[in-house]
């Protein structure tokens, strides 16, 4: 198994990977059109037992790279393709 080109790194648990955090963020965005980023952090803290700001940031970056989310300070909103 190659150690490069993997979406989820093997060294880290699945629940702290950027993909899973991105999924949680999208779940939160399902309910409302756009969310304040501070509310987003709060809801992530409630959902996961091990919350880290850098982990949340990587989740947001992952979503933005795939064109699913955009930012309009201080809101995060979902772009419907």
């Amino acid at each position, binding site marked *: 198994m190659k*150690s490069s080109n993997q979406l989820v790194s093997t060294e880290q648990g699945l629940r702290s990977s950027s993909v899973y955090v991105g999924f949680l963020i999208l779940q939160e965005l399902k309910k409302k059109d756009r969310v304040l980023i501070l509310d987003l952090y709060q809801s992530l803290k409630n959902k996961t037992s091990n919350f880290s700001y850098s*982990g949340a940031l*990587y989740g947001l970056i992952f979503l933005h790279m795939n064109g699913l989310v955009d930012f309009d300070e201080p809101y995060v909103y979902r772009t419907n393709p």
Partner: protein
Amino acid sequence: MNEKLAQSSTGNQSPLISGDGNSVSYGVRKKLANETTTMLQVVTLIPKIASENFISSEEVDYSRDIKLKIEERFFEFKEELKGKLQNLQALYSDAYSVAKENSGLDEFRLREYYNLLRNLSIKVLGENGNNPVKALEALTGYFKEEFANSECDDFSEQAVEYFLYRELIECNVFPNIEIKNY
């Protein structure tokens, strides 16, 4: 007020979480068992021990085949390695999984540290004549030195040993190297 903090942030109803009215407690248990704190810190000490990559990770493919590793590469040490792992498994497996989940490091830093660990372990294996048991003892010796330097009082040497054994299974210690063919 402190109890409210404790219950809201960790959900842990332990009576150990308390504090006098003067100090702020962030709802964390005052003293974690020392094997958990050891394992949480072990990964952060890796860059202090190993600072050189002599095998660039782009040229190399690590094949995570545990069977190949144990049966063929370390054939003579199979029983010894398994026996040691069985001894430690019951004591430290819980602490290991807790530490892995809650490490708090982001994935890129973790990847960097584990690359350093792979290279360091290859180097140590070479220094010890391809004997994995001796190499693991040498590695725990390095970590022990670093813990002593960082003035951490309660660290558990066996927890470090167990951590290295588990990482051997995950092929982060003594990885099987295949040079990529172009």
